[in-house]
């Protein structure tokens, strides 16, 4: 456990769509430099959780504290400017803009520190495509572009939504390494993932969700032995 104060504290988060309770009182916290894995069957509320923290919608109950301050009333762009960002499960690049412009939008509107979008592209491995329209990238390149866009805002908390899906083993391990290196630089990460193997390589702290509730919290190895978790994954 990190001795510092947590960067993010989530307490009793609630969100429902019509009759469906997508989040039903989820609580957890993340510290700077820490990676928290978030797993669970389809529809268990993982992405909803990311949406709630990043401000895609307002929650119906509970509190989200970032650096000790409640932020659940802030619009998404304000949270981004405070240092929260995310990637999308299905990449959502600005298809009609060039790769460079995609990153530039984020770099310009982040406010504060100057960021060179080309450096970020080099780091992520898309520099050679800088002037191509984002439309022409393949889907894993678009995923990388989504990550680049998020990085351009210099996040202190990064929410990663199923970035492993669709990557080949080589890409997977380099992605895992990449995420770990961000954490080593002090970034806090919440990594939503289906692939347990990938999670295993990224972190050892895990949260398992089912039907909007926290099912399990603890070490990955323990999770695989937990009967509720096994049931949720196999029986759900």
């Amino acid at each position, binding site marked *: 456990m990190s001795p510092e104060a947590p960067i993010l504290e989530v307490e009793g988060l609630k969100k429902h769509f019509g009759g469906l309770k997508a989040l039903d009182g989820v609580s957890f916290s993340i510290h700077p430099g820490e990676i928290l894995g978030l797993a669970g069957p389809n529809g268990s509320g993982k992405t909803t959780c990311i949406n709630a923290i990043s401000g895609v919608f307002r929650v119906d109950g509970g509190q989200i504290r970032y650096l000790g301050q409640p932020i659940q009333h802030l619009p998404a762009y304000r949270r981004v400017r405070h240092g929260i960002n995310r990637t999308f499960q299905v990449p959502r*690049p600005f298809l009609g803009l060039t790769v460079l412009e995609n990153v*530039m939008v984020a770099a*310009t*509107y982040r406010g504060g520190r100057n960021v060179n979008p080309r450096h970020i592209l080099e780091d992520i491995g898309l520099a050679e495509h800088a002037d191509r329209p984002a439309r022409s990238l393949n889907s894993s390149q678009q995923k990388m572009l989504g990550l680049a866009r998020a990085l351009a805002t210099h996040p202190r908390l990064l929410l990663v939504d199923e970035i492993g899906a669709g990557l080949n083993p080589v890409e997977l391990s380099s992605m895992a390494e990449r995420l770990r290196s961000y954490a080593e630089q002090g970034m806090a990460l919440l990594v939503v993932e289906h692939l347990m193997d990938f999670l295993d390589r990224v972190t050892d702290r895990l949260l398992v969700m089912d039907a909007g509730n926290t099912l399990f919290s603890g070490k990955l190895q323990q999770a695989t032995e937990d009967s509720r978790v096994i049931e949720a994954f196999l029986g759900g």
Partner: protein
Amino acid sequence: MPKTWRSTAVIVAITLLTFVFVPYIYNNQFLLFNMMMYMALALGLNIIYGYTGYLPFGYVGFFGAGAYGGALAITFLHWSPYLAVIVGGGAAVLVGMILIPLFRLSGAYFSIANLAAAEALYYIVANPHLESITQGPYGISLPQVYDPNGAYWTMLFILLFALVLSGFIRGSRFGLALAAIRENPLSASMSGVNVVKLRSISWLLSALVAGLAGATFGWYISVFYPETVFGLGIGVFTIVFVLFGGIGTVLGPIVGTLILYGAYNYIGISTPQYFQLVYGLIIVLLVLFLPNGLVSLAKRRGIDVP
């Protein structure tokens, strides 16, 4: 200075020279006036549609609001027409502010709701119960300020303003953010873009241009009825011109208007009896054989259009 700004400066210069000197060799000032008006409207529509992807079918509502705003300032406040044009722009911005909640809607819903708003505005203005304010169906008459030359230069100024505005937006970080909003609003807000605010600003700028143009049009013709300035035809024409020229650029709306409105007038003079038929056919053929607008022709050849 971005490249777009330089190209815009060139377009501004050409437009200015054209509309200053063509009246010396071509007498029909009204046609030139209408041409400038449609160009300004096309640019104004492009600010909201081309840059953010929201297509307001009822764009003419701002035009009408501007015409009436200006006319009321002249009638009741006895202001000079130049001030009245600004009032007209303000009236359109006011209407735009009232309509901001419509951005909760997407795609066709936004378009139709905006159309409904324009129609509702028309029926309000034309209602005989408001005769003491708007003259209701009896229409506006402003012989006291009739000054076609003054209105002509004002419209030229508005056109140049719309051009400079469009060029500035396109070359600036504001324009980049608008493009991001058009492509994907959610990703835009995840890039730190205040989507609601920027979209509202471009919406109000778009309304402003239409309002200024409407007020100047009202001043230029000096007698008009509600259906003259709220006629759906004006909005439909503007949309057609922008789409034909190519959205999201500075040059597209200008060239689109020049060619299509030019053709419209040419056919009207040369074959008045087949006017509508020929014009309709031209549009159908253009869409089928040039679906992405004129600008796509240049883009296909690798030319970057400002």
